[in-house]
């Protein structure tokens, strides 16, 4: 197995696409006010009812995708070690909960008064805040209560986050425990169909871990460039995108900053970019968003 990072750009580099005139597109999604459709088939008389707008720009550019967006309206969840609320580089939080598992295995989400137990979640939140200053950030803490329960807490936290209907869930973590893989897979797929984008760190080491290996998530490895908005599409998955992940200055505990490296920090760069795009185009499904990411990736011509 290989580890996943981008030291040199892949030879795959299509010709940059010329900027196209920006067309404002509204309503790529299905209109919920229409009568419900049968879920599993499409009768002839229902074809008109799923007719979707087709005013996509001739070329989907970075400018079309996120130009002028501040992330306003997009809701991002940081599933991590908690977030230090009120850090000058993070600002206010929409909500902060801590996940715990009760005696009869029930999952509880309570208001988190402890904040961040390691600094890591605060760093991820700060990266998102720096790129998408007006998005909403919530913290779901799945670390720090105890160690052995962490797998069940992680699953409980992800389930809770998916239920909250966030636009983006940042998961700068993974598990190597195979018994959790199938449940994680179901949760990832359920997020995908509920229009919640799961952005997950690929492992920096050559090991099997989840959920980043699933195709319903956006998986992220690191590149070494110092441009926070540079991101690359990887033509050799399972890692699909590379974000900035080396020598990134981030907020840490106690209101200060550190310089950090790792796929953990590449992931919130992609989460923020997703938030910028979704704030401007809230109708995009995860499938469409991934296509927009591909078309606007730095090595696919969208970096212009």
């Amino acid at each position: 197995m290989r580890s996943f990072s981008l030291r040199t750009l892949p030879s795959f580099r299509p010709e940059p696409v010329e900027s196209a005139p920006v067309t404002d597109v509204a309503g790529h999604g299905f209109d919920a006010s229409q009568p419900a459709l049968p879920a599993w088939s499409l009768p002839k008389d229902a074809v008109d009812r799923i007719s979707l707008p087709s005013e996509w720009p001739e070329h989907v550019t970075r400018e079309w995708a996120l130009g002028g967006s501040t992330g306003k309206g997009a809701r991002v969840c940081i599933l991590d070690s908690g977030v230090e609320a009120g850090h000058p580089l993070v600002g206010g939080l929409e909500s902060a909960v801590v996940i715990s598992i009760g005696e009869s295995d029930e999952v509880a989400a309570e208001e988190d008064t402890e904040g961040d137990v390691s600094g890591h979640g605060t760093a991820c939140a700060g990266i998102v805040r720096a790129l998408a200053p007006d998005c909403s950030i919530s913290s779901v803490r799945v670390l720090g209560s105890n160690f052995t329960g962490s797998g069940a807490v992680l699953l409980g936290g992800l389930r809770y986050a998916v239920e909250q209907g966030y636009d983006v869930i940042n998961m700068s973590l993974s598990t190597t425990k195979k018994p959790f893989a199938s449940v994680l897979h179901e949760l990832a797929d359920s997020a995908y169909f509920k229009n919640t984008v799961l952005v997950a760190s690929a492992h920096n080491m050559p090991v099997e871990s989840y959920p980043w290996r699933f195709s319903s998530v956006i998986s992220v490895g690191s590149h070494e460039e110092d441009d926070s908005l540079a991101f690359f599409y990887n033509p050799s998955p399972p890692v699909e995108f590379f974000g900035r992940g080396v020598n990134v200055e981030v907020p840490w505990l106690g209101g200060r900053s550190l310089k950090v490296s790792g796929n953990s920090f590449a992931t919130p760069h992609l989460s923020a970019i997703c938030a910028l795009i979704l704030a401007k185009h809230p109708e995009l499904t995860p499938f469409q968003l991934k296509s927009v990411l591909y078309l606007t990736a730095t090595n696919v011509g969208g970096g212009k």
Partner: protein
Amino acid sequence: MTERPDLRAAVAAGVVGSEESFRALLAAIVEVARSIFGAKASSILLLDEETEELVFEAVVGEGEDTLLGTRFPAGKGISGWVLATRTPLVIEDVQQDPRFAKDVAEDTGYVPKGLMAAPLLHEERALGVLSVLDRPEQSLFSLQEMELLGLFANQASIAVDLLLKARTANSVLEQGEGDLEIVARLAAVVDGLEDSKRAAGLRLLRELTDTLRA
């Protein structure tokens, strides 16, 4: 019949090698890691699952005289995060804030300016954390170093797995009230014989087995 696995463990304990030799291997790994990265210190922490603590199993450089065997809670701090999320990371303190120092000091006993940490993973388990503290200040971190750290962590996790197996085998032996020790000693002696004597020894054991079976 219930004794059979214990006897096997005893045989294993006789030939698997001593805990000391695996500790020496761990010490060699952190020594090389420190040297390759030009760092001030390097350590291997193992998870004690019963107490949910991390224990220093190998230390080189700063703290090597005092840290070995010391423990701290596995749920918090940088090492706790690396262990729980099974994800490596690199941190450089650009501001030298004393509050950061307090965080990391509980892991290390001294105040580093930066650290690289990777989980020790074996199959589905996270066994511990490999840390490298204070690389040279002027060198910017690169992905190449992250890859190197991962390779060291992989090597260390294999050594740790062997250490843990040796420990398990030895603990079975210790609980065997002396009976099993004879089997272990016999296995160790036969294992250490020269080729010619070894063949004779095995022949003798076969005879003994047949006699006992009769």
